[in-house]
């Protein structure tokens, strides 16, 4: 779902409100948002197993909450907010695990070995950031989300999103710099 999909989301919401079409609408919502939600969960949790867990928790909550969802926010905004909460909850649950970063080698773009190494470094560095910073970086790492949508998801003005992202980037660079051999 992209930023210009407001009309589609409104139409989907209508189908969600009707009990007869809710199940099919939920399936459609899952297919439309699963990649974005998984991406956000992956960057917040730092590994695919936890991201998978958070993704399932997200859509469990969405499925349970859909009958009472009145459309006060956009469907995608709501789902992303639930995903952020789920991912943070999953991280806190598995905080005791020794090393949870199992970064898989990326299949596209640049040198796969170098990119994979950097992705692993980023995952470890993200783990040391505050939740505010980790969340904003994770949302910005999802290509399909515009900065306006990110501001809407976080419930803060766009200017605050940029300044929070700037602080997060500086902190990430500092952690990556200090971790470099």
């Amino acid at each position, binding site marked *: 779902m992209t930023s210009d999909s407001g009309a589609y989301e409104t139409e989907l919401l209508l189908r969600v409100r009707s009990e007869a079409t809710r199940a099919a609408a939920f399936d459609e919502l899952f297919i439309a948002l699963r990649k974005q939600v*998984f991406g956000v969960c992956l960057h917040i949790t730092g590994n695919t197993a936890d991201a*998978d867990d958070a993704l399932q928790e997200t*859509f469990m909550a969405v499925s349970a909450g859909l009958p009472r969802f009145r459309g006060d926010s956009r469907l995608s905004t709501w789902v992303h907010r639930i995903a952020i909460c789920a991912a*943070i909850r999953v*991280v*806190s649950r598995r905080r005791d695990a020794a090393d949870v970063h199992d970064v898989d080698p990326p299949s596209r773009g640049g040198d796969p070995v170098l990119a994979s190494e*950097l*992705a692993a470094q980023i995952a470890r560095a993200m783990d040391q950031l505050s939740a505010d910073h980790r969340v904003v970086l994770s949302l910005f790492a999802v290509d399909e989300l515009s900065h306006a949508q990110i501001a809407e998801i976080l419930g803060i003005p766009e200017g605050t999103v940029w300044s929070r992202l700037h602080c997060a980037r500086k902190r990430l660079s500092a952690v990556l710099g200090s971790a470099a051999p």
Partner: protein
Amino acid sequence: MNNQATQCEAFELAALRRTRSALDPAEESRLEAHLRACAPCREFAATLEATSVAMSSHARSATAALDWERVRTGFVARRRAERNQRLRGLGAILLLVGIIGWSLGPAAGATFAALALALIGVGYWRLVRPQLRRAQAVATLNTDMLAFYRADLDQEIRGLKGARQLVVVLALLFALNAIFMLGHVVREQLLGHDFPNVRSYVATFITFALVGGAMWLRGRAVLPRLERERAELGQ
């Protein structure tokens, strides 16, 4: 020096905005000119580019490797398990109501049943359903969602701690009452009277032990996780 730092910060922000195509052509060329002249900003932009590419690429490959059908069936199974857990809870409540009703007769049974249902219902709502409650709350949110999340968790933790303190206070009161009751039984026996009717007291004690014990144990299991979740969110 400060002027230079402020200027660089503005260009770093511009570099970030460029990643989302949020710069107009004039801003774009000002940024390009600055990057040509400023090594630290060039390094910031290069790191930004490299980390963005690595994160996107990692997300793409992890997403491509995911078995969506397994995820889909996974959360359907989890929802079913949650429903079954609720049914088991309901069964336990009905069993409790039955025991109390059998031991006390209709009027007292109904009173204790209502009390048990209210306590277990509130405990269940607070402990099992907060994720759904929070999911519903974030749908109408128009403030900083992470600030809301922190405040909501604080409230949940306070509620759980309060419930556990209430259980401790009630347990102390029950203990005191048990001492008086025991004294009463011993005195009646020493005086050669009939054994006093303690059935209602025992039924109340069993109800409290079951409900209070369940609340205490649940709190003990949930509180550390909630506190870790709160710590994860920071200040």
